[in-house]
């Protein structure tokens, strides 16, 4: 028994070492969103491509919806763009853009130049919807289920690997939930 006690400090040190070592590989930017499980906040904003048409939170309900926060000032958004074009062909989801704190003209040009993956983009010049969603940078992507509830927030660029790992399982799960609900 006494011999065992002598090893306790060593064991504690090793355990602490393991915990701290694992901490080196955590991504501190991956924050849990405060909005998971909550309804999409109310908003009233215009379409990026059409100043006269107004979008509200009700327009985002019905299917599995992805809302991708993007801006022309965001270099990572450029990296992400081709993958978004791929995702826009996926029939299981509807992809909307949230043009965040951007210039309308510049954003319109960007979509002309790089092609438009979004069904439509919401124009959030002041970042008010961004604030309500807890956005702290771009790109960020939110997953909204059939009932208008936010189920996931992903901060960072989407590529094929991220899509397969982070999104596809959730979309499958949401579809299963929907099927059960009916």
């Amino acid at each position: 028994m006494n011999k065992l006690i002598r090893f306790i400090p060593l064991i504690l040190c090793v355990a602490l070492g393991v915990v701290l070592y694992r901490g080196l590989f955590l991504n501190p930017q991956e924050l849990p969103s405060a909005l998971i499980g909550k309804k999409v906040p109310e908003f009233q904003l215009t379409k990026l491509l059409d100043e006269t048409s107004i979008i509200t939170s009700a327009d985002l309900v019905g299917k599995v919806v992805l809302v991708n926060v993007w801006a022309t000032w965001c270099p990572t958004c450029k990296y992400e763009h081709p993958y978004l074009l791929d995702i826009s062909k996926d029939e299981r989801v509807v992809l909307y853009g949230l043009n965040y704190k951007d210039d309308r003209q510049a954003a319109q040009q960007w979509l002309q130049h790089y092609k438009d993956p979004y069904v439509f983009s919401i124009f959030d010049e002041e970042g008010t919807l961004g604030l309500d969603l807890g956005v702290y940078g771009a790109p960020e992507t939110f997953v909204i289920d059939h009932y208008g509830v936010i189920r996931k927030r992903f901060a960072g660029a989407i590529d094929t690997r991220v899509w397969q790992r982070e999104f596809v399982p959730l979309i499958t799960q949401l579809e299963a939930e929907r099927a059960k609900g009916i």
Partner: protein
Amino acid sequence: MKLLKTLFIALVLVGTTNLAYASPVDTYEFQDEVTKIRFQALTKELRCPKCQNQNLADSNSPIAADLRREVYNLLEQNKADSEIVDFMVDRYGEFVLYRPKVNSMTYVLWFGPAILILFGVVVVIFVVRKKQQQVNETQTLSAEQKDQLKDILNNK
């Protein structure tokens, strides 16, 4: 030597002036002194979600500027401090609080250190008592040992 000293002082001064410039300067007009103090306290207490080791008051990032403006607007709307903190937590999560709320998730954080110290004190008391007991035990001799001791001394 004197030259070195002045040089050192000059370097320190240059360093501190640079530090003063590092903090962002907003030009908000407050209704009164109390609101200003509340603004300063709130922006110190709230963490910037992007640059995670800085509070809103210290950070130069655009999101921190936005959130400072939001805090200012909420103060202008005569919201209470707790309402403003809740507003931020609702959007950015508990993470934005430098002083997290006491709840089941943060018990370890709040009470862990005290419990560890208590545990340490208990261990120390335990060890000291045990040592003392051992000392006492070795100091008292049984009757048999006393006889033996006498024999040894007498035989000399």
